[in-house]
């Protein structure tokens, strides 16, 4: 596997083709002049124009973004604390690990129906933004913990000890040494949480209330009636393009800073 890296490289490239095929197709279809997603009949930007006129889509997009942002902030803050809590061995850590890995493995449909029953029958929490937020944090938390924990456990404790030996208070050590070291993982965890919330269909579909339909639920309801609308295709294309652009900017900035610092780029 090492003597012929091109074999491996080809396989890896094919997997990337698999990952990007539907995305590229969406991008092409978003400029299609007809509604069809399978047959390209001409070039047009009408779906983008309709997207920006469609208030229902824009409103649910806004709600979805607010929800994803709030969910990402909460789960990143308390999830990061939890990741630090698991840093050193203590009695009961195994139990905590099991609890924290539960949301990773409980099937979404089970979580969805369980939360529906809980919110409606036991807690009396009305379906809608609040219920969605509670649920989204619950299923995103573990991803934050996993991502941050892997960075925390790989950290060199001696750097913090050195700072403390040099007279820094615990708070200063945390702010100037610990936090910068874990920052990339915290950012990655936050991105994960945001994305999980932003794209969730199954759990959200049980918890949306009147006037608080998230975009994926809206799309699902619409699509199961008459197929996916070309506006959504246009919106998806915009979202991928924006993410790709952010990544490119990140890479450029990182390599520019690395060149200035005279070392190789260290991103995450």
């Amino acid at each position, binding site marked *: 596997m*090492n003597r012929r890296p091109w074999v491996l490289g080809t396989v890896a490239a094919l997997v990337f083709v698999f990952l*990007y095929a539907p995305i590229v197709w969406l991008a092409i279809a978003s400029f299609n002049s007809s509604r069809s997603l399978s*047959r390209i009949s001409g070039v047009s930007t009408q779906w983008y124009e309709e997207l920006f006129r469609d208030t229902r889509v824009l409103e649910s997009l806004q709600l979805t973004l607010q929800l994803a942002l709030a969910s990402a902030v909460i789960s990143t803050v308390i999830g990061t604390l*939890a990741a630090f809590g698991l840093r050193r061995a203590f009695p009961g850590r195994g139990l905590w690990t099991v609890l924290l890995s539960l949301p990773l493995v409980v099937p979404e449909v089970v979580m969805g129906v*369980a939360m529906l029953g809980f919110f409606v029958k036991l807690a009396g929490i009305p379906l809608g933004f609040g219920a969605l937020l509670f649920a989204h944090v619950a299923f995103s938390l573990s991803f934050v913990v*996993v991502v941050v924990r892997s960075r925390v456990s790989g950290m060199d404790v001696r750097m913090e000890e050195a700072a403390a030996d040099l007279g820094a208070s615990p708070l200063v050590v945390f702010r100037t040494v610990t936090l910068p070291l874990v920052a990339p993982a915290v950012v990655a965890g936050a991105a994960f949480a945001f994305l999980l919330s932003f794209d969730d269909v199954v759990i959200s579909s049980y918890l949306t209330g009147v006037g608080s339909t998230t975009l994926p639920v809206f799309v699902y309801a619409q699509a199961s009636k008459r197929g996916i609308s070309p506006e959504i295709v246009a919106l998806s294309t915009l979202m991928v393009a924006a993410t790709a652009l952010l990544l490119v900017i990140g890479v450029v900035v990182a390599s520019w800073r690395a060149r200035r610092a005279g070392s190789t780029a260290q991103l995450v």
Partner: protein
Amino acid sequence: MLRRWLKANALLTPTGLWLGIFLIAPLALVVQFSFATRDTGVARAVLPWTTQAYLTALDPAFLPIFGRTLVYAVATTVACLVLGFPLAWFIARHGGRYRTVLLAAVLIPFWSSYLARIYAWKALLDGEGLVNTVLGWVGLDRDGGFLLTHGAVVLGLTYGFLPFMVLPLYVACERFDFRLVEASYDLGHGRVSTFFRIVLPGVLTGVLAGSLLVLVPAAGDFVTPKLLGGVDQSTFGSVIDDQFRGGNNWPLGSAMAVLLLVLVVLVLVLRGKRGEDVL
């Protein structure tokens, strides 16, 4: 020691409370529902306690659905391993300073709507779609395309869950000491022998963690089978969904959810401690 215990628990408490209230309590409620008697009211499940729902859930009529779900989940896991391993290995071994970028590139497609991607696959796979057209050039096309087949469902599930396989595999590969492979070659082992004796044991935690992260959600998913497989490919997940959304039989849906949970716990127990590092 006590101080350390207190500090750790203080840090873990917010997360513990959140999961306790919004995940564990709901799951406990589902267990209670599963023993309830069905009521004709608006999705109301009331006492007395009965095991009726479990008897219904274990009815042989549901057997084909269980079987189909299991086949989909296992096939998806295997497909994710076959595709994910070379990718994770390549990024860890040959990615160089672009490793993070390549890893991010794995995730970028997932920043678009999941449903839009599934519909893109629908368009690519249908009779007039690109896949069928290209296959037609070499005479491998199929009447009506590849939609509504088991293959389409497994493809959709594999597509959806691949990152959950790639990430833990990548973490395991990154920790793997690649010099061991050289050493194995130098000691006269071939590629196959090196793979099974050196590489696989070395990244086993990643393989186990990734398989778990793919197998369980794939067994519960119902959106992908519904959209790519059609009405005849109902799965365990879609039956549960029907009981809560349409059928109004919460006890039966709950009993099935509990059975799915038991399966998860069994897999977790079987996994033992090996995957713990990564998960």
